[in-house]
């Protein structure tokens, strides 16, 4: 069931269309990756979800109902352009931002102390923000985003500016939030993190959605029937042995093993390929090459460019 849905969203700025009939559907309890190159319209869509700006046409449904102003207390948003008041004390500032999300001062302070303790930054409570490192500021921003326990979380490029250790900490927290029942929209152009944590994705390019669905299905859809096989033994007349249905993409000689990449055409199967090769080669490993999200991203965007 879709927890969050946007249907046929159109947003026009003077001169250019930021979003052209974009629809996304985010299942409950999933991590939804919103992908696309810079300037594709991701941030505009996110701002519409956060009611920072409104769509020219189209509907936004939150848990089946049209989005209303009060829903902002049920959404947590970590924008790409994020910062804090530099001259304000850390704790004071976190309480202020939590109050703006509708929490009481007392409740906010109590919960913040717990989170600050968890992230090991409690000793910074009374320091000014300008004394903190960037990584520490990011932690505070993250805590403030999730403090009011929103049902829908939106992270726009959450890992930019984080070192690997903190990135892992953050990933762990995000997955934990999902397991607790939160639905997460995750906007990025860092494909590595998408593969690791996203269940669903939508790819936006030039104001239009060009691809969406569950990550595993998309990967299946974009696989190219290409297999990689490593073997020992010399054989340089493979072309003559293999039927025309098998297309050799690449052949490499290694120190211990040689590698062969073969594409299967015209519905031929991997077993047929193995059967043909077995008499000649000593096979060490055999596996299908599954395209990475990065490959799919580049391929789809480029295909789109040609049209």
């Amino acid at each position, binding site marked *: 069931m879709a927890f969050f849905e946007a249907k046929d969203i159109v947003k026009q700025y003077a001169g250019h269309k930021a979003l052209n009939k974009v629809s996304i559907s985010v299942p409950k309890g999933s991590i939804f990756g919103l992908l696309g190159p810079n300037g594709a319209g991701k941030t505009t869509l996110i701002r519409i979800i956060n009611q920072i700006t409104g769509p020219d046409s189209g509907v936004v449904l939150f848990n089946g109902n049209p989005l209303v102003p009060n829903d902002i207390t049920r959404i947590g948003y970590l924008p790409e352009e994020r*910062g*804090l008041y530099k001259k304000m004390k850390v704790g004071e500032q976190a309480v*202020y931002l939590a109050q*703006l999300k*509708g929490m009481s001062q007392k409740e906010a302070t109590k919960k913040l102390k717990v989170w600050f303790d968890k992230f090991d930054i409690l000793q910074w409570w009374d320091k000014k923000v300008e004394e903190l490192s960037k990584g520490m500021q990011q932690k505070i*921003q993250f805590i403030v985003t999730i403090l009011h326990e929103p049902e829908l979380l939106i992270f726009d490029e959450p890992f930019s500016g984080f070192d690997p250790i903190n990135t892992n900490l953050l990933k762990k927290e995000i997955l934990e939030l999902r397991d607790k029942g939160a639905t997460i929209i995750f906007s990025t152009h860092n494909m590595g993190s998408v593969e690791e944590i996203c269940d669903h994705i939508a790819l936006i390019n030039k104001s239009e959605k060009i691809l969406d669905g569950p990550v595993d299905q998309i990967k299946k859809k974009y696989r190219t029937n290409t297999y990689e096989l490593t073997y020992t033994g010399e054989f340089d007349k493979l072309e003559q042995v293999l039927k025309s249905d098998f297309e050799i993409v690449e052949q490499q000689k290694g120190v211990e093993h040689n590698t062969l990449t073969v594409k299967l055409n015209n519905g031929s199967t991997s077993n047929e390929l193995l059967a043909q090769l077995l008499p000649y080669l000593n096979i060490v490993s055999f596996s299908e090459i599954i395209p990475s999200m990065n490959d799919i991203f580049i391929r789809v965007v480029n295909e789109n460019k040609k049209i």
Partner: protein
Amino acid sequence: MNKIFIIIKREYLSRVKKRSFLILTFLTPVLIAGIYAFMIWMMLKDDTESRTIAVINESQLVEPVQSKDFTTFKYLNNTSFEDAKAQMEEKDYYAILLIPENILESKTAELFSYKQVTMEVKSEAGSQLRDHIEQIKRSKIIAQANMPDLEEKLAATRTPISMKTIKFGEGGEVKQSSTEIAMAIGFISSFIIYMFIFLYGVQVMRGVIEEKSNRIVEVIISSVKPFQLMMGKIVGVAMVGLTQFIMWVILSGIIITIGTAVVLPGVDMDSLQQAKTLSELPQGAASLNADQLKMAQDLLGTFDFGYVAGILGAFVFFFLGGYLLYSALFAAVGSAVDNETETQQFMLPITIPLILAMYIGFAVAKNPEGSLAFWGSIIPLTSPIVMLVRIPYGVPVWELLLSMVTLIGTFLFVTWIAAKIYRTGILMYGKKVSYKEIWKWLRYHN
């Protein structure tokens, strides 16, 4: 609605708690009191410096100038000007007064000094000479006229007139009024408004730029409406300004009162007043000034409460109206730029009407009924300042109401426009914004 209070609270507290605010709030009254004390001290001090002035009298007048207070006139007989000049340093003469032989005809005497001769010495010598010569001439005429008591009769002809200006009130009763006081009240209050709009309008702008440049703005407007953030900031800063202003008035009052009571216990106010008037108006105008002072006191005594309350009410209204109108514009400018150096091109259309209003105010003080006064006090960009200059003179009720309604209407309209610019501007980074661009923003919906 609750959130706007949270924002106002932060905007207010974060500024009031700043060290610079505390320093400015407490130091300014000390500074004002200090300047006040310094001025008094200067006046008293000037009088206590002893000076000896060598007099070379070549005329027939007999000792026309007399030593007085700390100024000593020393007549040098049988000493040439050159010798006197040579002795100056040795005998510590402050100056040499040369009274020429033909002073009755030339009406000129000369003061020689190595330093710039002070006003007191110059006027003291001048007025003594004048009085002396006048006295001689007068005695001669009186002797020729051969009339007893002529001296007294002439003195009795001097009649100082004090003009009381009385204005017809609405209900036919008469009110005493004073042009000078009306002018002073008008100027002071309109100048305060001018200062306040400038100082705190710019603070609003800075606040907006700060939020934009440290990138917190998007976090905040995902929780509150941009309009709430903008109004919260404007109201918060206004309260900071009011706090500072009230503190200044109270603290200055306290310091001056205490200072007058403690530091100057031996000096009675009369001599102080005399010292002051003497230094300002050396030609013996002290008595005239005292008359005026008395008149002012009389008038203040007859000021009815309604009149004062009316001025005060109008002050608060135009003060807030003007500030809100302009600070909305300042907020819009802040949202359109990335840093303060870029504000220049957008500041001009805001500062020009403000400065113009101050100039119109000066002109209106001379003629509070003219068409410049009328339009200046109706057009909302200048009305908060110009109307305040006019109000103490009395303004027809319909004009006042028209001005107020126009100001409120314009405030609402400008805030609406500013909010539109603000909403788009705060999320716009790294883009050099032009007027054309802003025009486009106004046509976006949402």
